[in-house]
């Protein structure tokens, strides 16, 4: 049975974890889905958050806990995804959205880092600074990844300028 002190400590931990997760849940999920596709990315995000809670006492003291959990999720996804394709589903088009059907396949053919940068920057509208903080990659490197990724994507889609 938990002592009252332990109970209070657990409650405080849960509160800080909940606040942190409320802020970062969508960002981490978007980054992992961008890197590893819908299924693997979602699984990795769930595993990263589970790991985060399990080790929250230690992780909450880190300089960049979100960046650490990104690394955990990335490793989980890479381990689980060995030999698997990164799956980006085709999406239905309607009058509001008209997505080029070859786009998902084109995304699958980018490198992991290119795909993450392209989707976070140009899809989700993150700033380079935000991506740099999460991925712990310098902004010039990210700009290079984004530029090459967009070029490759345009080439794949037959829209090379």
């Amino acid at each position: 049975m938990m002592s009252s002190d332990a109970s209070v400590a657990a409650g405080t931990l849960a509160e800080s974890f909940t606040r942190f997760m409320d802020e970062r849940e969508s960002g981490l999920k978007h980054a992992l889905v961008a890197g590893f596709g819908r299924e693997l990315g979602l699984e990795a995000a769930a595993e990263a958050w589970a790991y985060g809670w399990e080790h929250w006492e230690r992780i909450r003291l880190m300089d960049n806990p979100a960046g650490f959990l990104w690394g955990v999720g990335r490793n989980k996804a890479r381990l689980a995804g060995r030999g698997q394709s990164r799956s980006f589903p085709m999406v239905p088009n309607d009058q509001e959205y008209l997505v080029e059907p070859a786009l998902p396949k084109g995304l699958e053919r980018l490198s992991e880092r290119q795909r993450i940068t392209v989707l976070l920057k140009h899809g989700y509208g993150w700033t380079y600074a935000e991506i740099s903080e999460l991925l712990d990659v310098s902004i010039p490197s990210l700009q290079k990844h984004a530029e090459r990724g967009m070029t490759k994507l345009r080439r794949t889609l037959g829209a090379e300028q």
Partner: protein
Amino acid sequence: MTLDLERQLNDYVEILDSTLPVLEAGTVIEAGGISPVVESRGRDWSVLARRPWLAAAAALLVVLVLIGGTSLIFSGDGGVSPADDPVEEPVVTPTTQASVTTVTGDEAAVIPGVDGSVHVSARWLHTGFAIQEEIGGPIERVEQVWYFDAEMWRIETPVWRQGDSTELEGDVTIFANNQMFEYRAMSNTFEIVEQDPAEPDLHPAVDIEFVYDCDQTGCTRAFDGDRWDDCTITENVVVLGSATVEYDCTRPPEWNDNETETVTLNIDETGRTLKGVLTNTTETGDLSILEYEILELDLNPTFPASLFEFECPTEDCRDIAIPLDPVEHPLVGQPVPEVSGELLTGGPFDIADHRGERIILLLWASWCAPCTDELATLEAFSATAPDITIVTGAVFDQPTDVAAVIDDMSITLPVIDFYTRNLTQGNYLAEQWSGSGIPILAFIDETGTIVAVHPEARGIEELINTLQQLGW
């Protein structure tokens, strides 16, 4: 018309985002540090074993996964926190303490190759108990690596549990005790060449593995499934004490992100391995030069004569020991498995009804790029071969996804829907095709025998070569 790529990306993620579930902190906390994800492919079974209540919930959830077609389900059962339920620490074996174990095989053969290289091919029939004794714990899953055309392909077998038996050929990866054991074929002996903890973030040094196929003159081929598909190795030299690998890539290599890599070099296919660590990276434009410090290296190994001899593990083995061609698919020469189901265009298909015909069968999936490449090849070829029956089967996709792809690619070939069949009759590919990966292009003669298999996309030239060899 100019394609507004940024707008396209923005629209795409907006639609994609609407399909992503939100993971609530309360759900994570209630799960007590255990991922609320249950995967049909059987990862983390050891976690379930430690928590019987979760195992029961997981069984229910797996059924829901199969029915609902989603792999992400959250469980709200059981509320524990780190404070009142310390999680059992996984057994972590340092990667530097690889040891050797032996599992007796049923069949094994050593095939001398050209230039002094040695190809080892072996086949083992394991029971769950046999491997359990060696590893000392329950087995969560088994992966294996097969050799095709001297390239290494990782093929994940279905969930493999104690008491089941499975036939494994080539290299094997076994997950047990929260560790990953990689075995490399060495006659009928498995040598552990890598041990990974299941918590990769605790050991970032084993985050990425590069495997090279080498002979005494150096390494000639690198394989990595995800990261180097756009790269050409322009020079690759191994000398005693160090290795330098040069890559000329169309994209910047991803080494400059503070990751630590290890490299495993396989000097030959007898399982001689060596470990190295990356010590320096030089990047000039698209060219990367990677320098490794090699910890152990034997560039001119002496192959003992015994390596070229085959010793039967049992007196009866001479009846069953068959030297295996590492290039040949194990189903070649076998009767074609059951190939039946509903066609996407409607109506049944049963390969048994086509006895007496020459048949080419492609098993594919819409998300597998090599598969769709091969599908396009086959579609183009079909117009030139009216005397060959060509049929395809989509093995993992929902029919709506398959229909979208064949519509997009203007495919006219018949497509059997194995996805719906899988829901009620088990994994078709695993059960009928020995767990092979996709694409599979099988050539079936008039007697219903598989006479050739392309276990990967090989394009029109190889297709025609095979047909010529078969005399079709």
